[in-house]
């Protein structure tokens, strides 16, 4: 998930979800720190403190591996996407080494859903999968 200055993260549970969202878990703190670093456009700090050296980020559109590629990717992708404001985090699940969420977000193209999944090794992301419903399907 990419965010830009002005982002707000609202942990609003989906009323239909059976998942109870707990805001104060270690993974939740990790996620909030993740968003804060993105919000500050501190891509170097984000990648070096949140991703393993051999980490991969993968989506429909791009696949990148390793710190240097990740830093360049976050800078480029955030630049392309003028802004992305997280309206709500609708689903959340976490375990000892994984967490995933679905969120509703606003972009320059409209409001839509994004989903992200993370596998962490020794507290750092080693695999990050991300996706979205195409913007054309959620233009409002």
């Amino acid at each position: 998930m990419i965010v830009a200055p002005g982002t707000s993260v609202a942990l609003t549970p989906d009323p239909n979800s059976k998942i109870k969202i707990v805001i104060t878990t270690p993974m939740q703190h990790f996620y909030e720190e993740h968003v804060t670093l993105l919000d500050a456009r501190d891509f170097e700090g984000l990648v070096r403190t949140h991703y393993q050296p051999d980490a991969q980020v993968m989506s429909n559109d791009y696949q990148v591996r390793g710190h240097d590629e990740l830093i360049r990717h976050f800078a480029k992708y955030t630049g392309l996407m003028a802004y992305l404001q997280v309206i709500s985090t609708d689903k959340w699940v976490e375990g000892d080494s994984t967490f995933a969420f679905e969120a509703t977000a606003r972009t320059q193209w409209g409001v839509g859903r994004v989903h992200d999944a993370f596998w962490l090794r020794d507290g750092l992301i080693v695999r990050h999968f991300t996706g979205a419903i195409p913007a054309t399907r959620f233009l409002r």
Partner: protein
Amino acid sequence: MRISFTVNQQPHTVEVEPRVLLVDLLRDHINLTGTKVGCDSGQCGSCVILKDGISVKSCALLGVQADGAAITTIEGISPAGTMNPLQVAFQAAHAVQCGFCTPGMIISLTDLLVTIPHPTEHQIRAWLAGNLCRCTGYENVVRAVNAAQQIAASEAHFLPMSAMRHFYDSYVGVLNGSDLTALVERYSPDAVLTTFEGIVTGHEAIRSYFEDGRMGAENAIIATEKFIEFGDSIYTESSVRTAHGLAHTYHAFVVQDGLITHQFAGVK
């Protein structure tokens, strides 16, 4: 004679008489009847299969000639319940009339598109010289081959499939079937399956998860619209038929040493 070979990635060891044709071995001994017997004399092409990736007429080979080979029949050209770009194009272009020649056509044209990724109309027609259609529906078959190239390009992959694609297709085949043990064996002993219904770890928990009505015909992946692989990871988006209708799902897998170590799944 005892021979060992793989058919659609599944190993087989069979006792077969030396006189038995490969097409009869596949149909009568392994029960894969998608391969048709038309002329039985190497003329019509209804019995074409892939032997080590090369299209051959299985009525023109003895079964024992398959010893050690990798055979792909129409049943294995795409995972159960799904269609590859060529099959999608055949359907869309109405390239099927009575359908008897279709398995042989699909297999032959799969070989064509691997051998000549962008064939001309002349090359398509020349390649099909060994496949006879008694309905004479060749025009739409040629259109389908052209359409298949566009479909394949949009998905950025086509046969021959990568090892990861083979793994995924095999996984889907098992998932769509009801072989729970074979499905669980796709996972490493300490695999982690993360969904918004919860996280399960290890074979027993994964077995329990799938036992709860999450596999088989009532919950089948009927089409994988997106398949992307990168290193040890796969990302897919699929249509799933459920008791409540069609669902659009996404899955991410980490596959190491041939086993799933991590899987994420959600519904769009």
